[in-house]
């Protein structure tokens, strides 16, 4: 539904092509598109205004008319501005000299405090700590029960009021918090994570309650849990919580949807507190420290190449992958290589997540939920081929096809689809190797609508998406990765 900023720019800059210079009106056009993109990403209006001011200044200062590719240039400026705003280092937790290190979780109802308390506990465990969870949400029915169930999943104990007190709804959260600290000490727990009831920032009574819990616990870290889908109101909410609790950071949840997360940017800009953690899925392990610079691309709808590369580095054996890369370029890539790549890619996480990080992948393809059993089917098909067939898929004829289909429990049209896909992919790879400077020519298809499937068109054609250009990818590469004299393609 959203257009990415590059899509928007493409329209503007194609109009400008051939013009010698950008007029002030042209720059205004560009800025208007940026404004729209930011607002659609739920960046707070006030933040949008101040950012636009800065972007305008730079856009005028850098004399876009001389840029080889003004669209790219502007995008770079915007990305840099966003990254700067989101800015700062990834949070480093420093543990209290006198344990436990206390973490307080606060937020609106439904933002995901309870779930993320458990996820955070799991994260601390993975760091070699011994966390304990404390349930002070004695208000929402079954909130403590939910925390207990989740805690069991992550293998962390829970301290809360006794069941009958919880059920009565009359327990005192502050009392629970007080006793919890002693309990943590007694159990030798070095991290205490306190879940609290959701509350509206304007609910004075509830805000006072969380303030008292905070006063009791004297937390080392207070995190505000913010839903990535939050709109303009995020800033106000964060401000009120910050006034009451003095936040240390934000935990951004539900990032696995298609919300752009502009709210997070706004919170950072207005309250000045970093996004410390992000939750990217329903499972307890879908949670990690947040890399602020990486949200920038997402807000603009541009993917997140840096994370992708990092994951790739972890998952691939460098030498093997380089050899495979060579074969790709030469066009001697086989289905065996493909299988191997797929295994490595599986290690990088869910494929659909990876696709979302890739710039230039159309939404229709990005949104397809790719399940393990889909991959398993493809693996099944390849496994059912003979060695010869894997090296030379062209020899697969009707009878081979039906044998493979029978062997893998699929249909022969599945087999031919896969083979066709593979062939197409091999060709794309080969082209990359052959024409190092793929320029305008190769991109024609895109503008004529290759990427934009009409609404409700249903199935996207796998062939309808274009690979991002080298320029586009490099624009997003963190400088550290580029390295001096890195060879072009």
């Amino acid at each position: 539904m959203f257009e990415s900023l590059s899509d928007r720019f493409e329209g503007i800059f194609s109009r400008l092509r051939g013009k010698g210079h950008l007029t002030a009106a042209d720059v205004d056009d560009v800025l208007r598109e940026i404004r729209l993109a930011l607002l659609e990403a739920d960046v707070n209006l006030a933040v949008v205004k101040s950012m636009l001011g800065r972007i305008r200044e730079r856009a005028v200062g850098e004399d876009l008319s001389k840029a080889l590719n003004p669209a790219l240039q502007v995008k770079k400026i915007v990305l840099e501005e966003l990254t700067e705003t989101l800015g700062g280092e990834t949070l480093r937790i420093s543990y209290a000299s006198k344990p436990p290190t206390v973490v307080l979780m606060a937020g609106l109802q439904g933002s995901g405090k309870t779930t993320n308390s458990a996820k955070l506990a799991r994260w601390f465990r993975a760091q070699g700590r011994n966390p304990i969870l404390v349930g002070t949400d004695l208000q929402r029915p079954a909130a403590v029960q939910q925390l207990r169930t989740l805690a069991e999943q992550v293998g962390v104990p829970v301290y809360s009021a006794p069941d009958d007190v919880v059920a009565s709804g009359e327990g005192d959260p502050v009392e629970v918090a007080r006793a919890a600290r002693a309990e943590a000490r007694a159990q030798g727990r070095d991290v205490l994570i306190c879940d609290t009831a959701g509350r509206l920032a304007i609910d004075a009574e509830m805000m006072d309650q969380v303030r008292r819990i905070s006063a009791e616990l004297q937390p080392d870290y207070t995190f505000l849990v913010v839903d990535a889908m939050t709109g303009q109101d995020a800033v106000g909410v964060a401000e009120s919580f910050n006034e009451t609790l003095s936040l240390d950071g934000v935990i951004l949840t539900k990032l696995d949807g298609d919300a752009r997360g502009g709210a997070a940017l706004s919170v950072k800009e207005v309250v000045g507190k970093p996004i410390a953690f992000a939750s990217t899925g329903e499972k307890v392990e879908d949670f990690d420290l947040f890399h602020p610079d990486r949200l920038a691309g997402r807000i603009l709808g541009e993917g997140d190449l840096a994370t992708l590369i990092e994951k790739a580095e972890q998952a691939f054996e460098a030498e093997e992958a380089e050899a495979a890369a060579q074969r790709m370029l030469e066009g001697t890539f086989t289905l065996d290589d493909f299988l191997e790549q797929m295994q490595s890619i599986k290690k990088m996480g869910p494929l659909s997540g990876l696709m979302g990080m890739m710039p230039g992948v159309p939404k229709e393809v990005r949104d397809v939920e790719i399940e393990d059993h889909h991959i398993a089917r493809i693996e099944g098909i390849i496994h059912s081929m003979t060695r010869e067939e894997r090296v030379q898929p062209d020899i697969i004829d009707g009878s081979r096809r039906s044998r493979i289909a029978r062997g893998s429990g699929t249909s022969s049209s599945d087999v031919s689809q896969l083979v066709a896909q593979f062939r197409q992919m091999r060709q794309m790879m080969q082209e990359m190797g052959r024409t190092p400077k793929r320029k305008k020519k190769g991109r024609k298809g895109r503008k004529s609508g290759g990427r934009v499937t009409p609404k409700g068109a249903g199935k996207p054609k796998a062939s309808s998406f274009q690979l991002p250009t080298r320029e586009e990818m490099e624009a997003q590469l963190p400088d550290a990765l580029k390295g001096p004299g890195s060879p072009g393609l």
Partner: protein
Amino acid sequence: MNTLYLLLVILAVVVVGGAVAFVALGGRGRSGIEDSSGAPVLLEEPPAEPAEAPEGDVDLLEPGLEAPAPGPAVEVPEAPVVEPEVVEAEVRPSFRERLAKARASMSGYLSSVLSRKEITEESYEELEEALLLADVGMGPTQELLDGLREKVRAEKLTTNAELLDALRAEMKSTLEGSTDLARSPESPTIWLFVGVNGVGKTTTIGKVGKRLADDGASVVMAAGDTFRAAAAEQLETWADRCGATIVRGAEGSDPSSVIFDAVEAAASRGTDVVLADTAGRLHTKSNLMDELSKVRRVADKGAGSVTEVLLVLDATTGQNGLAQARQFAEATDVTGVVLTKLDGSAKGGIVFAIRSELGLPVKLVGLGEKAADLVDFDADEFVDALVST
């Protein structure tokens, strides 16, 4: 490690992803969401399509029977169960009062507009900002303002007070719609509640159940959220509060079967309404959305019929709300929106986009935490409460 190699690896990801996506889509019809847990089918009357036969074990809990007796220990003080029904009607909260905080951030813009002598370009700009701040979104804001300019010209409006009146009228007409919740001709009536995580589906069901019970209707609550930890317990607490029967399955069991069983149970004892809870899910997860479509279909298979599919939406939701509404509408034929948590500082402006683009009316709004705080939506009251100084 050089860039060349990395880029190639990335390309491989895309290509493999594309290929898998393609094959996955191609085969969706078949591979679908059937799962063969092999659990025995407990129902006497299997529904027509065997592929969708609900399965899994389901407990039927009735208050006072197998269910833990709702003794004094589980009495929850904040629930106004003891209040006489007459009082319920009287304590209906006012939009104006509950939206006070939401209004506050807009009123600055509106006062500024009103302080001008005549309608200028600045008036429109300030209104635009006010609407954007309310999460109305760029598209609907432009539509509203275009309509406004048109009106100003046609009706020769000159003062900014008139301008504001015209804006309110525009906004009201966008949102106007029936708030009736349809009952099916033969019981039970089934209302399904859907939405992303954390918007307040279970709480909304509790409150709707309370309303129905106060009106003398009998209610079965179906704990279709078999995913979130303790979701069924949460619903059970609500069921206890309003004397409803709850039907729940084991954690992780098939939600369709739980809801189907609830419908059957309701039919066999002549219950009026089944309120079916579902697990919160992000609209981008196509497998979960497929599951929801199945829940919707299966719920319709037994006695009675699904007359309302209500999308529960958090008022703090920004522009993503439209994407949510679109996907849920596609998966389940949503009939209306429940806007929750409108008692904070959020303004819920995304409902304008949802109304104008998808035609979905807002039917209920949550103006507070109490059961009585869930009220019928009233476009006039809402707009007046939001757009005033």
